[in-house]
């Protein structure tokens, strides 16, 4: 469904481009902060609007209901939506975040995944930390039934861990960074590869109609990505200010983001396929779904490649 450049010249632009921004996507904050998108489309008189996504599921709701054209989500969330038939494709990877890990209290005896057997573990069903937890268990030969899973929202999970209501928590930044700093919580199991990346998704019909503009939005994001790589300190400040968090927490969160590879590719596909299997087992994705095909349909690197040329 990728556009080709010959058509692109004759296409008329959209009246308005609707971007989202999210605290879990630092590049989106930078784009919004500096107004680079407005700058890019100003000449053509195209309006740019921003909508805050409070989480992946909100971003997907906005995409589905044609409320935004671009939405930032975790890779797994995009996959689940795609499995339900959402007309979206992933055109860009804004970061490889290590935003989730397994966390426990300072004094806790839990040191490795195997120690979780029979313990109470908090996680938010269906989200990246949940997938992370299941994959970690899976890797060590444990099953979901071997632990007591407590379904709590991310913030509540952090609280429950702090007050000892649960033994461990599949954490998510910035809650996790903050828990580390404030209560000395320790991340006893980390694995960046089990995270499912930060995806910038576009509505398929938008991409079909205005392929050129998808590329140009990506260009703006690229500018922001490079700026973040060059100015990590200022980026942390922007994140802290926008998301209302401590600079220290913001720094920690940014450190755990790898902005080096924005092009959706094989590694992303592999990560999503692995996540897909876990989700299938957890019944978050239909038994009959063809993960392979879904992932290939979802991830469409053509727009970035062109931009690189």
């Amino acid at each position: 469904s990728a556009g080709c450049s010959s058509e692109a010249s004759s296409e008329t632009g959209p009246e308005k481009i609707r971007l989202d921004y999210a605290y879990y996507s630092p590049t989106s904050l930078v784009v919004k902060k500096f107004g680079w998108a407005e700058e890019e489309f100003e000449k053509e008189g195209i309006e740019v609007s921003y909508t805050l996504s409070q989480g992946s599921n909100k971003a997907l709701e906005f995409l589905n209901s044609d409320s935004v054209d671009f939405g930032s989500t975790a890779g797994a969330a995009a996959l689940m939506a795609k499995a339900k038939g959402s007309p979206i494709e992933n055109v860009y990877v804004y970061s490889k975040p290590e935003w989730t890990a397994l966390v426990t209290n300072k004094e806790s005896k839990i040191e490795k995944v195997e120690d979780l057997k029979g313990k109470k573990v908090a996680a938010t069903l269906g989200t990246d930390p949940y997938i992370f937890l299941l994959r970690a268990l899976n890797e060590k030969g444990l099953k979901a039934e071997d632990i007591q899973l407590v379904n709590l929202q991310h913030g509540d999970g952090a609280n429950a861990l702090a007050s000892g209501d649960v033994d461990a928590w599949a954490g998510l930044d910035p809650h996790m960074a903050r828990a580390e700093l404030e209560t000395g919580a320790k991340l006893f199991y980390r694995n960046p590869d089990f995270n499912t990346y930060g995806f910038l998704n576009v509505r398929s019909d938008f991409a079909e109609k205005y392929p050129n503009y998808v590329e140009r939005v990506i260009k703006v994001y690229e500018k922001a990505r490079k700026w973040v790589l060059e100015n990590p300190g200022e980026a942390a400040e922007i994140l802290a200010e926008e998301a209302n968090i401590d600079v220290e927490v913001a720094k920690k969160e940014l450190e755990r983001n790898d902005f080096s590879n924005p092009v959706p590719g094989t590694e992303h596909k592999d990560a999503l396929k692995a996540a897909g299997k876990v989700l299938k087992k957890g019944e978050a994705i239909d038994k009959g779904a063809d993960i392979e095909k879904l992932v290939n349909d979802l991830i469409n690197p053509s727009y970035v490649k062109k931009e690189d040329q």
Partner: protein
Amino acid sequence: MANHQNGNTASLPFPKVKKASPFKKAMFHPFIVGSILPVILIIVWEALSRAGVIPAYQLPSPTAIVDKIIELAEKGTLWGHVGITTYRIFLGFLLGTAAAVIIGSFVGFYNRVEQLLDPMIQAFRSIPSLAWVPLFILWMSIGEASKVALIAVGVFFPVYLNIVSGISGVDRKLIEVGKMYGFTNFQLVKRIILPASLPSFLVGMRSGLGLGWMFVVAAELMGASQGLGYLLVVGQNTYSPDLIIASIVLFAILGKVTDALLKRLEYKALHWQDRLERS
């Protein structure tokens, strides 16, 4: 309000029909009349879904929803979800109503108590259910107790408000009758004020029950692994519109059933009301 239960059907639209035929009677049975709109709604929705006007990823068709519910039922988890939520609602409703009756009676009756308590209660009333969640986890941990307590909080406010208002709306003339008998304040409340403010109280209960259902979602954010609110949130997190809508439908059905029970109680308890015979 529930006049139809004693066959006191409308007189304006069909003023001349003295004895309706059995067929007509069945046709205009309140239950059937009440089903007209929902049925139309469902048919239109289904048609739009089939025609592809509403894509399934946005809003699955009614048949898909029913399939989902049947699937849950076949897996056997449906009863667990429905059962545990109903149980929580029930307990929370009892607790919240009891607290509201006790506190509301005092506030309604004693000016001083009102001045002391009411301002704070009114302030708490506008705190959203989601905002209570972290506080309740803090105070009561994540067991069953905190869930029931949160639902009770939701039930409390409307019941309280209606009781206080009901009490201050009671005809002074009737209270004086009790005073002449030297009734204690407790007796006044029990024998005159509560019965006289019963209509208001019952509306409060129905309103409170509705809010209780709404608080279920927040309550089941507190570490539940079963329940309708849990289903809804999981549906949102796993991006399953069919699960979301299925849980909404279940909310609606259960809400309607429990409300109908209260409405029945209302009708029974208020048979003495010299109420408007409606057209």
